[in-house]
């Protein structure tokens, strides 16, 4: 197989796999939530309810696609595509296994950060274009929250970059051959996880769409497939953050006995399960608590982590 054919095959397979897995995730999440809340979750359609995703997508696709007359039409239509596109683009740099992955970018980590920072627009613009006060409030919250948490999301990863000496994700995985970075970078792992959840707008940090005060936040006015894109985008985002945590802190595809791909998928799934557990367990904080937590606890923590890591790396060199 020629080089370009291999890349194209990789691209299409990864895209299909990410989409399929993200759709499946909506079912996995509900089943897992059921497990942790003493109930079953969807178990009626197909074996173990796995065809629930088919039923859900049929329902989503056949709903009326409604653009409110008071909305800013162009921006309203544009917003949901941004979230899906940026999340999928960021997947291009994730090294899944030694020979699986779309591109091997020198600045892979920065590319991931850039894409996740562009993802904010979908929420902010969706909230603004809906021309609805609840959506607008959701958009405000999203803008402030994601901006705040982005700051230390990047800083939390700089410790990893210092240890690996590269922004290339494959180099970072290779640098964890002897010791996974979750041990020396435990602070970085904690802060990056928190920031990642906030970036993916997951409970307990889903203030942009907090149902019990803002109706549905930024996607109040969205229906049908436009809502579906937000939905898929959120699940792709969770998968992306989990894959990044695995790549940066848990040695990516590294592991004994099993093939690399299986190791990567297994680790990613465990991290996703932890995210779902977080959702099952924790309530949503108040907005000022969220902001204070980000700026007054997490940011100093990442700076301390950066200082210590820098000192250790310097003294070792």
């Amino acid at each position, binding site marked *: 197989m020629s080089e370009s054919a291999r890349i194209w095959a990789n691209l299409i397979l990864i895209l299909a796999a990410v989409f399929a897995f993200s759709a499946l995730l909506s079912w996995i999440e509900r089943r897992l939530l059921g497990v942790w809340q003493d109930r079953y979750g969807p178990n009626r359609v197909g074996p173990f309810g796995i065809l629930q995703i088919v039923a859900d997508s049929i329902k989503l696709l056949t709903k009326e696609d409604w653009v409110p007359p008071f909305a800013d039409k162009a921006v309203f239509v*544009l917003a949901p595509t941004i979230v899906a596109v940026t999340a999928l683009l960021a997947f291009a740099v994730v090294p899944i296994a030694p020979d699986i992955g779309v591109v091997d970018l020198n*600045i892979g980590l*920065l590319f991931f950060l850039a894409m996740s920072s*562009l993802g904010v627009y979908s929420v*902010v*613009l969706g909230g603004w274009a809906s021309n609805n006060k609840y959506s607008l409030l959701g958009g405000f919250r999203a*803008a402030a929250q994601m901006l705040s948490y982005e700051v230390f999301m*990047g800083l939390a990863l700089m410790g990893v970059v210092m240890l690996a000496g590269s922004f290339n994700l494959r180099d970072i995985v290779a640098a964890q051959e002897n010791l996974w970075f979750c041990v020396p970078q435990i602070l970085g792992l904690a802060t990056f996880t928190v920031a990642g959840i906030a970036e993916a707008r997951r409970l307990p940090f889903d203030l942009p769409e907090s149902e019990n005060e803002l109706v549905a936040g930024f996607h109040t006015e969205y229906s049908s497939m436009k809502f579906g894109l937000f939905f898929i985008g959120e699940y792709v985002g969770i998968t992306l953050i989990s894959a990044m945590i695995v790549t940066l802190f848990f040695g990516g595809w590294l592991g004994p006995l099993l093939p690399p791909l299986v190791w990567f998928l297994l680790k990613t799934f465990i991290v996703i399960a932890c995210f779902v557990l977080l959702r099952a367990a924790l309530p949503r904080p108040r907005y000022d608590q969220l902001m204070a937590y980000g700026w007054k606890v997490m940011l100093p923590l990442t700076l301390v982590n950066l200082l210590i890591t820098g000192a250790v790396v310097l003294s070792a060199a």
Partner: protein
Amino acid sequence: MEATFYLSAAVAVAATLMVVTRASAVHALLYLIVSLLAVAVVFFVLGAPFVAALEVIIYAGAIMVLFVFVIMMLNLGNAAAVKEREWLRPGMWMGPAILSALLLAELIYILVGNEGAAIAGRAAVDSREVGITLFGPYLLGVELASLLLLAGLVGACHLGWHTESAWSSHSESLSDSHGHEHG
């Protein structure tokens, strides 16, 4: 590579033109974001991937979000768009347009004059090199910029600080705990 450069450069110019002519502020900002992204691609093609990534993260991803945030907060309606359209009369944009045309002519002259200096095909500048350069020959510039940012930080801190008098309506115990929180 050459084609990518010219394409993204054309996108950047077109998007910037749209920024100036849009009546709605949010639409203008959206075009500005597109322009910044195109500039990032230009940087990437020219062999500066680090700068390209930072352009997207900082300019497109952070600063522009703040702009959008503020514009959203201002809640500009149709009246603002109408006023904006009134300002876009030839009389208003003729002066700046002539000056810009002069600059453009100068740029073209320089580009045509230095035909030998190829744009693409330069070796990529990686992040390590950028760091060494910043903290080597350009250390003074970095320090000055950081001082400027520190001044901004202190100013923002001062503006955001709740003085005791502002909290006078609150009970004493509340103000006490708040003072502690900010300290």
